[in-house]
């Protein structure tokens, strides 16, 4: 690349746009944090400079954790995210491995179908699914979402893993086959242990998507005791026309933290998965 810009030129070409994007991207999070720490007297006083907190308080957090079911919702969200991610990874591998390694009639068709299913958006399916869940008597159980999230996550994991599997060299598997290992043994003992980075990428994506899901949770979970964080926050912290903004922002911030932590640990895997051109935007 061309280098050697003057400091002024560098400021205009680099710091100005990057600074602008950072400011816009992060302001809502800053605003969540500031709001959640303000006492109500400051929150609803239009004469004060809004960007600063004069008398920070944890009252909204205490209220959120003691007067609402936020901790229960967090627990529910974790259970749902972990289980649906696990199911999706296992089923995703079972789809992706044959598609990546075997030659059989129909492979191309199956790969296309998986890609197409992965692109079918939820709004096309939620009405019949709601009826199905009712008939199966799964309404207001976590099973309803643990079963339905993988409908999005399985094709997604399969697609991402398929891309990853194809980058893994075949020699080790061929050697194992020559030594007499069955296909199943080759896959389980030789191949899958080589694919940990792929599993981490797919796993983080599936996990963040489950934490993010709203429509199915909104429809299937109408009792407070089974709600996930996004639905709980929307359905119960917004009470009629009265908004408890301090609590709402505290909930929004706390609800974002698990995803943000997981993401920060595996950000390189996340970006690798993102840029393999196989992620919804």
């Amino acid at each position: 690349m061309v280098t050697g810009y003057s400091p002024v030129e560098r400021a205009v070409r680099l710091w100005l746009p990057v600074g602008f994007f950072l400011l816009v991207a992060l302001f809502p999070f800053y605003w969540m944090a500031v709001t959640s720490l303000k006492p109500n007297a400051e929150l609803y006083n239009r004469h004060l400079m809004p960007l600063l907190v004069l008398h920070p308080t944890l009252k909204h957090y205490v209220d959120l954790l003691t007067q609402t079911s936020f901790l229960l919702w967090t627990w529910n969200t974790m259970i749902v995210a972990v289980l649906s991610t696990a199911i999706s990874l296992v089923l995703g591998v079972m789809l992706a491995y044959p598609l990546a390694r075997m030659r059989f009639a129909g492979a191309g068709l199956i790969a296309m179908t998986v890609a197409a299913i992965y692109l079918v958006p939820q709004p096309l399916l939620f009405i019949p699914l709601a009826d199905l869940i009712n008939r199966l008597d799964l309404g207001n159980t976590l099973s309803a979402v643990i079963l339905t999230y993988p409908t999005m996550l399985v094709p997604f994991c399969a697609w991402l893993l398929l891309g990853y599997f194809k980058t893994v060299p075949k020699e080790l598997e061929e050697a194992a086959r020559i030594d007499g290992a069955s296909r199943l043994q080759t896959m389980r003992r030789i191949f899958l242990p080589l694919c940990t980075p792929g599993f981490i990428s797919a796993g983080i994506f599936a996990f963040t998507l489950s934490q993010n899901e709203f429509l199915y949770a909104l429809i299937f979970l109408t009792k407070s005791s089974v709600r996930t964080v996004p639905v709980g926050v929307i359905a119960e912290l917004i009470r009629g026309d009265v908004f408890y903004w301090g609590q709402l922002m505290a909930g929004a911030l706390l609800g974002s933290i698990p995803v943000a932590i997981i993401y920060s640990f595996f950000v390189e895997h996340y970006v690798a998965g993102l840029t393999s051109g196989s992620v919804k935007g």
Partner: protein
Amino acid sequence: MTSRSEPVVGVVRLARRAVSISGWLDRESVFSWLMMAPPLLFLAALVGYPFLYGILLSLQNRPVAHAGTFVGLKNFANDINDLIFWKVTFNTFLHTAAATLLKMVGGLALALAMNQQFPLKNLVRALLLLPFIVPTVLSTVAWMWILDPAFSVLNWFLIALGVPKPGPSWLGNPILAMASIIVINTWRGLPFYGITLLAGLQTVPPELYEAATIDGAGGWQRFRYVTLPLLQPIILIVTLFSVIFTFADFQLVYVLTHGGPQNATQLFATYAFDIAMASGQLGLGASVALATFPALALLILALTIYLRRG
């Protein structure tokens, strides 16, 4: 002798059969289909079946908790005569086109700005992706508060800059409400565009820029004739993804405006939800949801063909 050899032959036969079963299981096609059967059955039951069932529902008058009666295409005829349906169609296309365009232009700008060497670049990249990874509902609540009618922080700044009190009613005015939805959708999706295009930019060989510079190309020409053509495939894929999922957006609108004011921000997903879940007319709701299918099917087909990993 013969009596003793009999069982031995049997064992050998059994062993042969075992070998042949494991041999059969080891055939590529058998192994593949057995392995894929559970996920395929799962998807058939929870995607394929609901999809077909949705078509059936759209042909029924089906109130919640009642049996449906077959009404043919009456629901679709209803949609065609429904003014709100056409408003929703217009809204959805406007929202998709505007948000996608903003994400594309903004994402490209972000990628170009980030495609320079500077300290803490990885940290900046991680922070820029936050709007994309944080649960949409939760960040939308923050936006709701930023645009609050009485305590909007945005209006506090506008008023400080001389805009007459009380400042714009962001979610109360039909045009401003739609603009707000488009901007917030862009805020959420732009990092995905930007970071993906950045990865694309990093694969452009520097020699190409050097050659173009030697040939006398300026900054704009290098961008126009080197960068853009090489990025084109990535831009196309990202755009198709973005169009599909902007088209089907639900959470942002549901939380921020519930489709209001006066259906000004109602999209297909929220409208179908209102009819099916709030009014309990599953059949009519299914017909609204299915009305998006032709457009979606074309997009999905285009992207699937483009993505084909063969």
